[in-house]
């Protein structure tokens, strides 16, 4: 049976998350009440039947390592296969590879040893709940070299600017990969490639001193490859700025989006915690919000996303905000359009108001 192995490549992800990425890389930013960005790519791989996943991570990955652990929460703590977190290696004096090619080059064994003949490659900024089984079948049926997963965006936003656009013919063969901002057909950063081909391209790229596997190895060699596209349908989001991060969290408060992302036959998997159910005290008022376990709510919460273990004291109002793990909001506080990173303590009587377009962000572990 043909199978795929997984690769989450974080090397060339653009991200402008300011305070949120002071101490972590973009892939481990908390999202949607109890997840981290990387959970979506990782869960999609596992839910598509992939049993071995490698992650290319260069910097600020302590929080990522902590989150992933042995991979058991994604059923990746296996005798065969499993989770491989692959840092680049700088110690080989003969190594002249650059960019993500450095990772490919120094971790050839991962690909060589894997039993699968195909590799599913993804970043961490495309958020969806997808089974790539059909895309893989499409890849095999049409004997493609590469299958790029694309999605059509109804309403283009600034965060979409940095993603490639795909021009394909009527039956899905890719003719061009561009930066045309008006083209609504976005490349999701997810693609399937034949493993042998991948290894060949890696060697070529290194020989030409390239530093970007996708750009130099696939985009610029499009003419010589059989590249097709497979359209992803259903809810999805691209997140690479604070603004898109905020907007996409808020979009989850529309039930349809929430259902499409989270309430599918397969759940998005994440690190399991030991938090108790949410505790609502007398006189709590909560409307149109998402709350993760461990929260204790005595005040008012409206149109907000609360992560695990948030405490909202009496006489406090929270609106249109994202409150991350273990924040404590004391009595008589007013928060609107605010993002609090983990472990923030907001003291009694504070008022913090951001704007819808530019939410006010408080970095991790601050006392305000």
């Amino acid at each position, binding site marked *: 049976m043909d199978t795929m192995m997984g690769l989450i490549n974080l090397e060339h992800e653009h991200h402008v998350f300011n305070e949120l990425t002071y101490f972590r890389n973009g892939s481990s930013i908390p999202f*949607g*009440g*109890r997840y981290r960005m990387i959970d979506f790519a990782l869960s999609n791989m596992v839910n598509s039947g992939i049993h071995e996943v490698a992650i290319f991570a260069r910097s600020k990955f302590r929080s990522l390592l902590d989150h992933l652990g042995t991979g058991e*929460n994604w059923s990746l703590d296996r005798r065969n296969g499993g989770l491989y977190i692959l840092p680049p290696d700088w110690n080989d004096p003969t190594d002249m590879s650059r960019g993500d090619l450095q990772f490919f080059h120094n971790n050839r064994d991962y690909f060589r040893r894997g039993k699968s003949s195909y590799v599913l490659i993804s970043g961490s900024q495309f958020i969806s709940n997808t089974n790539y089984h059909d895309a893989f079948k499409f890849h095999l049926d049409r004997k493609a070299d590469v299958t790029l997963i694309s999605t059509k965006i109804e309403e283009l936003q600034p965060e979409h600017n940095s993603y490639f656009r795909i021009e394909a013919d009527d039956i899905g063969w890719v003719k061009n990969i561009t930066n045309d901002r008006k083209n609504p057909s976005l490349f999701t950063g997810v693609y399937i490639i034949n493993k042998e081909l991948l290894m060949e391209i890696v060697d070529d790229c290194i020989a030409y001193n390239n530093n970007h596997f996708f750009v130099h190895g696939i985009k610029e060699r499009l003419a010589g490859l059989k590249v097709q596209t497979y359209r992803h349908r259903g809810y999805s989001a691209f997140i690479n700025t604070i603004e898109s991060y905020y907007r996409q969290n808020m979009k989850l408060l529309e*039930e349809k989006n*929430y259902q499409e992302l*989270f*309430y599918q036959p397969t*759940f*998005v*998997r*994440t690190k*399991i*915690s*030991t938090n*108790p*159910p*949410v*505790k*609502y*005290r*007398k*006189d*709590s*008022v*909560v*409307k*149109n*919000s*998402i*709350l*993760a*376990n*461990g929260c*204790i709510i005595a005040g008012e919460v409206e149109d907000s*996303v*609360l992560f695990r273990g948030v405490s909202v004291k009496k006489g406090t109002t929270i609106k249109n905000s994202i409150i991350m793990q273990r924040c404590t909001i004391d009595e008589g506080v007013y928060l609107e359009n605010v993002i609090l990173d983990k472990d923030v303590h907001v003291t009694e009587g504070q008022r913090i108001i951001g704007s819808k377009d530019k939410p006010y962000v408080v970095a991790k572990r601050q006392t305000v």
Partner: protein
Amino acid sequence: MEEIIGMLLAGGEGKRLGALTNNIAKPAVPFGGKYRIIDFTLSNCTNSNIQTLGVLTQYSPLELNRHIGNGKPWDLDRGTGGVSVLSPYTAKNGGDWYSGTADAIYQNIHFINQHNPEYVLVISGDHIYQMDYQRLLEQHKATEADATISVIEVPWEEASRFGILNTTENLRIYEFDEKPINPKSNLASMGIYIFTWETLKAYLIKDAQKKSSSHDFGKDIIPAMLDNDLRLYAYQFNGYWKDVGTIQSYWEANMDLLDEDWGQALNNKNWKMYTNDTNYPPQFIGEDAVVSHSLINSGCFVYGMIESSVLFKNVVVERGCSINQSILHPGVKVGKNATLERVIVMENTEIPEGTSIRIGENEEPLVINQDILTGMLTLSGEEI
């Protein structure tokens, strides 16, 4: 050799819990929005650093076995020790069901011998409390006792419902009164014992040979030890403790979690509650929802009114509903404009639109599952 191992009695049928224990053992009954009753004792073991634990099962063990699994959620998946599920078995010379609490331990003497501990902790899986068993052990060692029994003060007027221990001033036990009509003390046994293993073993073997014995710790082993003047001490426990033996007490114990004081127990960082967790997404509270004084677990969708209630995972409460003082087990769906008051709804029950079930304050809360509900609705139309 280990200093202490735990033996957790989890075979109880829990007859007085009615439909709640139709298909599952009492320790496996869902509790507190996310847990099963046994999680309190299992978490106590984890937090008390009891690293070897035998769980004795008998009645309808499937759910319980699946819940405990290899013990991972409680850090009991260990190379040596860890959790072992001990069910009744047959061997060369026959075999039998566990006929009493003492018999259950007697039939597993070989398991305890394997670990060869100095002390054995005997606990049961159907009480709600948080206790550090190490403190119990410390006292046991300090008093050089043969057995130490944990006790709790109960109101004098209720004392005749319990097994009462009469002690001297320094807590040495001289008499055990099972449900006394005129209690001399209000120290009730919590069914939590530490025995010095060599002593207990001898008594278990002797008791097993007695045909007239009911092979019960409270009725047989403890009185026999007292008859022989062994050193038995009471350990006084001052926290929350509840035997969830009846539907009323099951309901009360759930409601107790909504209290400001005891309810904090679930959020105690120094005494975490562990359970077999799932990957349900966070709960979604809708625009028109009114939620207060409640516990709600992940995967729930709430659009109606919830007050003083406990919702397990994956529960849906539609618009216009009013849920009051009720307990909704996993997967329950409540249709639009339904009213529930003092009702315990079992797993995956679907309550049709407009149903109204209200149980008066002085009546026992009602347990319903899909079958009971269908019966009720056919009998009396929609309004009950």
